[in-house]
């Protein structure tokens, strides 16, 4: 995996991926920042180079890479790095960070579908009017038509003890997984939710509020 951009996001992303056992290389072009990253991630994990330069990507093995994540603070650099990965080198998955939300349409116009837009994430939370702690948006696919959210079932939730098939869930909604302690359960209709369960659900944006009410009683 190749991560372009060694700022806070790039650093934490690389650290997390490496700790999960993935082979990951972080590219950072600023020499001072690179030195810090080397000290904190190890010299094998970081390289001082411009990840939006095709010869650099070629040199670090982009043709073998399964993922390229462009998370620099410059939208145009992220776009070009992603495009080089996807269109020029055939990288199976590319992810681009959008700094200025105004540029999101440009990312999509130029063929980058997997996007990280933290401003949009926060905006979503605020717009939906749900408490920050209750519904956590995880991923939006297909221009936001499909949303994955995470909810933690509180004590006193109307859903506790009821089988999933008996819950009043909104349409276009599926409970994809229940995380109970350190177990992941792919639920069937007979499974029942318990307090403190973490529920991963797939739904449409319009139904997030109703899902919230069904599971959290808000």
């Amino acid at each position, binding site marked *: 995996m190749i991560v372009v951009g060694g700022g806070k996001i790039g650093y934490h992303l690389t650290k997390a991926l490496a700790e999960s056992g993935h082979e990951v290389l972080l590219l950072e072009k600023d020499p001072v920042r690179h030195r810090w990253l080397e000290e904190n991630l190890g010299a094998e994990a970081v390289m001082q180079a411009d990840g*939006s*330069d*095709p*010869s650099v990507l070629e040199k670090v093995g982009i043709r073998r890479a399964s993922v390229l994540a462009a998370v620099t603070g*410059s*939208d*145009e*650099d992220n*776009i*070009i790095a992603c*495009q*080089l990965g996807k*269109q*020029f080198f055939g990288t199976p998955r590319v992810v681009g960070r959008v700094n200025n939300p*105004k*540029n999101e*349409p*440009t990312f999509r*116009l*130029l063929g980058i579908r997997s996007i990280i837009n933290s401003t949009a994430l926060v905006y979503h939370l605020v717009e939906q009017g749900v408490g920050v702690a209750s519904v956590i948006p995880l991923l939006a696919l297909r221009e936001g038509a499909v949303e994955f959210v995470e909810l933690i079932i509180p004590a006193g939730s109307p859903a506790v003890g009821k089988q999933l098939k008996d819950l009043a869930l909104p349409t276009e909604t599926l409970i994809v997984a229940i995380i109970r302690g350190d177990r992941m359960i792919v639920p069937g209709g007979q499974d029942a939710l318990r307090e403190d369960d973490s529920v991963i659900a797939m739904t449409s944006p319009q139904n997030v509020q109703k899902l919230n009410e069904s599971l959290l009683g808000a």
Partner: protein
Amino acid sequence: MRVVIVGCSRVGVMLARDLAAKGASVTVVDPRPESQHLLGRDVPVQTVVGTGIDLDVLEKAGAGEVEVFVALTDRDNLNLVSAQIAKQKFQVPKVIVRIYNPELRPFSEQLGLETYCPTVCTTDFISQQISGPGGAPSCT
């Protein structure tokens, strides 16, 4: 002929003035408000203050109605993104881009952009000067 130039660089200024003097309708996009001053008041060149990857700015500059779009900022990636927007969103027939990094030329050409690389041209010129005439000038 209608032209949008992104980047009020030295080349941008000279090109804008040149084209305007020949009767073209030219608009220059640049984030610096003093661009109009750089262009001079003696030729009819419009300016729009903003960055060349902002869809609204390009719309305002009339990118949807021009025959030629030239990306001339000093940042290759900015030029490539701006040029692609011109080609894909605004369907500009002729999109020209200046790229300093010769390694980006194949990609730029793959995108259908007319690509000019000063690094290659300058090197070619100097090599010619050193080795004397006789070699074919490449400069692309």
